[in-house]
């Protein structure tokens, strides 16, 4: 019998009273591995109330002491590293190396947040007028919440939670109902780290829980990562209820290859970008724009290399690409493949033919490559969120850039070149928040903001780094004079 996940509210593990429950599946086998309750609004309100009650004492806890909780948490995460990575692979399907990379990224955010005694320091100026000084201090605000996606079930809440808590705020996580077990495991470690009751809270649920967070007057701000329509909804609803919001949304990331690119290194980088995590990440490259003469050799090398990738159960160390997360996702991706064929793109590599021995019920689709993709085709415009790569041609750099300009998204883009001039032009002009130069996955490390523009981000302050510190604090300015 599979475990039913519990909520963690006010320092206690509690079974949800909700009758609405979903199965969580291992995407490699299709088997149910857990059950997740879809908590009622009253349970969300209880979590927010616990967080609110914990705030006054937590905010008065010196930053240095809060930082020690981060060190304690880091030690626990290191100790349980492999178990966490396996949990991610089991519920999401990504290969174990990618899961390890994800857990490492989560830990890196804890490491950066541990620097809060310095990161939260304000600034001051003497004699702004005769005998008058001015100070700016950073103060925590209250209760914050995160609505997390399925694709990085361990890492994404850690773009936010460590910073919020280190800054003196209290926190509620609502994990994805598709992949909720990693957060349950992480909260066991947060529990072991012995944060005061109510400082960190976990509520499993779906839209009902999200709406409860968005409308609760005691929630000061919300962080979200997911699709563009949901990001817009969360941003608008949070704003309408007077909350801060940072909403990381969808993407359609282009990988521009110039004729002077180092082809072998470029192909390796593109493979990782397009097919890593089976294409289910907001930084995945999904459209290669081949400039000029590079087109034919690039196409041939890409197809040859992608054909050789081993698809299978992510727990098998020899596997290079795992399944997609759900049957529904698989069907959606297959629909995009159909649409590409119908709209006239040429299917060079058909991932639909992939079969994995011993895993007949897994949600597998192999690397898929389309050639002759035009900017007006559906597969060139929409986020597929699967291992489907399109190849488009551009006669020169300007045309390549215009293809990116024409997209509504602005999450990431990469350029492959040996020319500093083109690299500089690209960095300067491309309307995307995360830019790679000879890097296929432009993933900012924890001390930098995870950027994003246009329809890929709603808000102003991003997750991670200094942006996170600003998002989770208010600036208070004190102007003083002594008679």
């Amino acid at each position, binding site marked *: 019998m599979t475990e039913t996940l519990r909520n963690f509210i006010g320092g206690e593990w509690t079974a949800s009273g909700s009758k609405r429950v979903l199965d969580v599946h291992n995407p490699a086998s299709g088997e149910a591995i857990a059950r997740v309750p879809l908590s009622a609004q009253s349970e969300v309100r209880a979590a927010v109330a616990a967080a609110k009650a914990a705030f006054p004492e937590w905010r008065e806890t010196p930053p240095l002491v809060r930082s020690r909780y981060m060190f304690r948490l880091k030690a626990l995460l*290191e100790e349980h*590293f*492999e178990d966490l990575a396996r949990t991610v692979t089991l519920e999401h399907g990504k*290969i*174990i*190396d*990618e899961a*390890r*990379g994800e857990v*490492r*990224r989560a830990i890196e955010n804890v490491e950066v947040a541990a620097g809060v005694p310095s990161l939260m320091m304000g600034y001051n100026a003497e004699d702004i007028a005769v005998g008058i000084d001015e100070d700016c201090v950073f103060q925590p605000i209250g209760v914050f919440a995160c609505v997390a996606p399925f694709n990085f079930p361990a890492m994404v809440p850690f773009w936010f939670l460590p910073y919020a808590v280190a800054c003196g705020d209290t926190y509620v996580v609502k994990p994805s109902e598709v992949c909720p077990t990693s957060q349950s495991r992480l909260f066991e470690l947060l529990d072991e780290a012995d944060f005061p009751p109510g400082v960190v809270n976990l509520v499993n649920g779906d839209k009902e829980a999200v709406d409860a967070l968005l409308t609760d007057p005691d929630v000061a701000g919300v962080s979200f990562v997911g699709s563009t329509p949901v990001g817009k909804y969360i941003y608008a609803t949070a704003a309408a209820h007077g909350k801060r919001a940072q909403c990381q949304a969808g993407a359609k990331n282009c990988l521009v290859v110039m004729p002077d690119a180092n082809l072998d290194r470029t192909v*390796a*980088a593109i*493979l*990782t970008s397009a097919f*890593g995590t089976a294409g289910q990440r907001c930084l995945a490259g999904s459209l290669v724009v081949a400039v000029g003469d590079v087109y034919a050799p690039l196409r041939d090398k890409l197809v040859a*290399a992608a054909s*050789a*990738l*081993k698809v299978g159960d992510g727990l098998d*160390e*020899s*596997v*290079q690409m795992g399944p997609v997360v759900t049957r529904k996702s698989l069907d959606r991706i297959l629909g995009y493949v159909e649409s590409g064929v119908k709209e006239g793109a040429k299917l060079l590599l058909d991932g639909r033919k992939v079969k994995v021995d011993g895993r007949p019920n897994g949600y597998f689709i192999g690397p898929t490559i389309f050639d002759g993709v035009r900017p007006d085709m559906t597969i060139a415009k929409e986020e597929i969120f699967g291992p489907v790569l399109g190849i488009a041609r551009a006669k020169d750099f300007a045309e390549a850039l215009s293809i990116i300009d024409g997209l509504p998204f602005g999450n990431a883009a990469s350029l492959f070149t040996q020319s500093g001039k083109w690299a500089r032009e690209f960095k300067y002009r491309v309307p995307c928040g995360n830019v790679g130069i000879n*890097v296929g*996955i432009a*993933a900012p490390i924890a001390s930098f903001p995870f950027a994003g523009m246009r329809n890929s981000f709603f808000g102003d302050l991003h997750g991670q780094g200094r942006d996170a510190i600003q998002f989770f604090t208010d600036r208070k300015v004190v102007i003083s004079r002594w008679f």
Partner: protein
Amino acid sequence: MDLATFGAILRFAMELEGKAEAFYREAGFAEATAAAAKRLRLLEQARREGVAEMILEPITGLDTAAYAAHLEKAADVSRFEGACARFYKDAAAKLPIREVVRLFQRLALEHEATGAQAQESQGASRRTEGG
């Protein structure tokens, strides 16, 4: 088996060290047992800390078959240690992460030294038996 991922390479390395540790412990070589156990810890740490998106690019040209070596009796030690040294050297040339490359290079040297020592003591024991 093809070693095409960072994890597969690290796992194979850990299997080699696990085999070494078990053999040396059984044979009563305390120093060699401790050295193998330390290498295992370092590899486990490298697997935890060395993994990032950038290194998930495909790796080619490494196969476990090239480093197959028994370790069941004292006479196997030199060949086994030689195979380990070759593996670490070859893998270091394929891995794109500097800390792990440095670790593998160091482990190659350790295995070379242990192999040379084993060869020397085998030679000495043959000389003793002969004379």
